[in-house]
């Protein structure tokens, strides 16, 4: 291809060390691959190159590496993995900015499916837990929704760009494969729907969902999430906002109980 952003091929090559695991129940190992250097290449384009020629550095024919990707422009959230020990999106990880050999390993906070592909089901389940939706009456035409200020829109827009990639859970010391901590992404989504003029009507349900076991109190305030989020979502602010909501509701609960007790004791 002869384009103004020439993608020059040279005789240099890039070395990859890639985690291989055929079966989550079996132990894994690393394979090393060498891929021809191309200007502008990223980790996914190199993995695609390996598919076309799945041969390790020492000449062994192996099965192509299994990894998740779809959009290749950092908007679908598929391709999160650990690259040189740091969680990030593989499609936007430019080779020129990485040290070699480039080591690829799957995220550790989710069960491995195979090689670099993991099962992030817990993230989607978390969205159910916080009722991450606006409960509309139906799909018939009821005219426009409530007006919103430009300021609110700009805050909500940023929150709603979360691509459910799982990086924030991967970086969080409180999340592990066998605990229930809901994680920063879902907490931030609860904030989003509680800001929405219609979503607000059910805000208490979402706050309650964050109160139980595995809820917001499990957050250890390490602040790793906000550092790794590829969409630069202000996760620590979201956690702080929702923490306040949880506290408010807890206090309200106490007073409500006292009121109830007073009420039930009848007129003095």
């Amino acid at each position, binding site marked *: *291809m*002869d*384009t*103004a*952003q*020439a993608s020059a091929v040279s005789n240099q090559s890039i070395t990859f060390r890639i985690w291989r695991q*055929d*079966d989550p129940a079996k132990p894994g190992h690393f394979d090393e691959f060498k891929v021809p250097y191309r200007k*502008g*290449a*990223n980790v996914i*384009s190199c993995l695609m190159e390996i*598919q*076309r020629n*799945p041969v390790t550095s020492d000449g062994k024919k192996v*099965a*192509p590496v*299994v990894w*998740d990707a*779809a*959009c*290749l*422009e*950092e*908007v*679908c*959230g598929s391709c999160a993995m650990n690259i040189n020990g740091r969680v990030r999106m593989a499609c936007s990880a*430019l080779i020129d900015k990485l040290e070699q050999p480039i080591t690829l390993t799957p995220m550790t906070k989710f069960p491995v*499916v*195979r090689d670099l*592909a993991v099962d992030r089901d817990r993230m*989607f389940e978390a969205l*159910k837990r916080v009722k*991450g*939706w*606006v*409960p*509309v009456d*139906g*799909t018939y*035409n*009821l*005219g*426009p*929704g409530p*007006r*919103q*200020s*430009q300021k609110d*829109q700009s805050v*909500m*827009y940023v929150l*709603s*760009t979360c*691509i*459910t990639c799982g990086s924030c859970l991967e970086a969080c010391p409180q999340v592990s494969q066998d605990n229930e901590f809901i994680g920063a992404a879902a907490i931030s989504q609860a904030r989003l*729907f509680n800001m*929405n003029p*219609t*979503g607000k009507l059910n805000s208490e349900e979402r706050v309650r969902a964050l109160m139980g076991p595995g809820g917001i109190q499990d957050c250890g305030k390490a602040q790793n999430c906000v550092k790794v989020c590829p969409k630069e979502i202000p996760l620590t602010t979201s956690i702080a906002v929702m923490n306040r909501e949880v506290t408010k509701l807890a206090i309200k609960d106490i007073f409500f109980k006292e009121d109830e007790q007073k009420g039930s004791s009848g007129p003095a």
Partner: protein
Amino acid sequence: MAAAARFTVVGGGLAGLMTTIKLAEAGHQVDVLSLVPVKRSHSVCAQGGINGAVNTKGEGDHPDIHVKDTLRGGDFLAEQTSVKGMCYAAPGIIYLLDRMGVTFNRTPEGLLDFRRFGGTLHNRTAFAGATTGQQLLYALDEQVRRYEAEGKVTKYEYWEWLGTVKDDAGRVIGSVAMDLRTMEIRTFPAEAVCLATGGPGIVFGRSTNSIINTGTAAGRAFMEGAIYANGEFIQVHPTSIPGEDKLRLMSESVRGEGGRVWVPRKKGDVRSPRDIPESERWYFLEEKYPKYKNLVPRDVATREIFMVCRDLGMGIGGRDGVYLDVTHIPAKTLDAKIKGVMEIYEKFVGDDPRHTPMVIFPGMHYSMGGLYVTFESDAKTNMPVDGSPKNQSTNIPGLYAAGEADYAFHGGNRLGANSLLSCIYSGMIGGPAMANFAKSQSTSAAAMPEKFFQSAKAYWADRFATIKKMAGPENPYQLARELGDVMTENCTVVRYNDRLKKTVEKIRELKDRWNRVNVLDTGEVANRALSYTNQVWNMLELGEVIATSALLRDESRGAHYKPEFSLPEPKSKDPTQDPEWMALWRKRHEKWAKTTMARYASEGPQISYEPIATPVLDPEPRWYA
């Protein structure tokens, strides 16, 4: 049929999710199958926005003008009934999305904001930053999650639809699908099945599409007897960043917000763009199209850029590439309206487009063609009849298609921001159509003899057992790349019959080589190469349909451009003032204003043409100068 029936929707992009919502809302059970978690479907990539003539800018916009722009933009190949229905439904759809919580940009008064897109003179495009598709998909995904929590929807993510299950009469009564993790193959009985499986971008190797958009489902449906229509109409987007793995789109909204396309006036000028003074820049679109300027329809802009680079050799540095310049727009405005796009450029090229003009080139983007579907037209309104089971139905009873996978709404060329709309609209009418189809059947699919399901499942179990043993010299990923290269070279912006013939021959050669493929992976878990090898065959089928349809259409229309068969330039600025030219145009129009219909045959696609009803708008020459 019982009041609550079971349906299958294949695909969890905008079209599939809207179909699902409509069925679940009516109380039915829906199985949603998707290659990836639905939230990761290709619809997330859409940047610019969604059209609807809401007319909040005092420009006198109206759904009728939207209809006219769409039909004209598509050079009168679109299905007119559905286009009218879509444009009239558009404002309501945007309001619905607003109510679902889409974070659309707002005016200072708190109303929805609208921007201008190509092929129209109106501000008609609602947008959420420059990630509108993502925001719309999430809104529908959230509604579906709500139905999932209520038990009305069951999602099968990482499941691949393989083919239909039919009864003796040829009615679709279910599907066969494969779990892409455990590799289990099973059947899904359904009263009706909708293919909302998106476009075939990966048939072209590199495109602006997600890499899961292989078109495999449409290719398979074609092999099973579904008609594939207007396959030759492939939209090449004027502005993308060329890349090794993907052509990353720079949305039309960049020009909608004032972006300007130019090249240096001096051939091979090596100065940095910022050192080239205004007077030495050639804004070729603005010069040639003073009315629409940089916002001419996509096919027009693409051809102009292509010719500037290839025919005139005026590309930057003499190569493929022109400037797309937003450096005159305040960075703050850019960030408020098109930050998503700015970031993609910054991330993948390394330059900040707020300060350095972007370098772009056309890239394969969208398929106007797709599975042939019909509509029942209301004689009074010329719009689809509410709830008619005919709407969005393919020629196979019980099989429906919606979204980019269907052929109906965009004719020879799609207008920007009309696709998200057609996806949602087709789901809105497709869901009720499926439900009413089921009601009209005397026997429920669920009550059909087990043998139909067993034999369909056995066919696929057998096919994959065979593929798994394939140990020849050919690499399936390499075959797909060769297909992509030849399709991009000969079947995109400019088309010549000799090269199209060679393309069809090359595809036949690739099909032959497919028989000597090596499956590469014999693993029992998440064997992607196994599923991909099967997909490659379906991609070859679709490639052959597209190339053959292009070969046989000897004219230029919309995105399909054959210099050997183009009309001459008219002698007057307004072509209707040149009677000789008008006579030529009319003759051509009578011959070719028809839908291309491809039917499967083992020796290659059989092409025929179907006249197009024009109850809504009489065809006229398409002219933007």
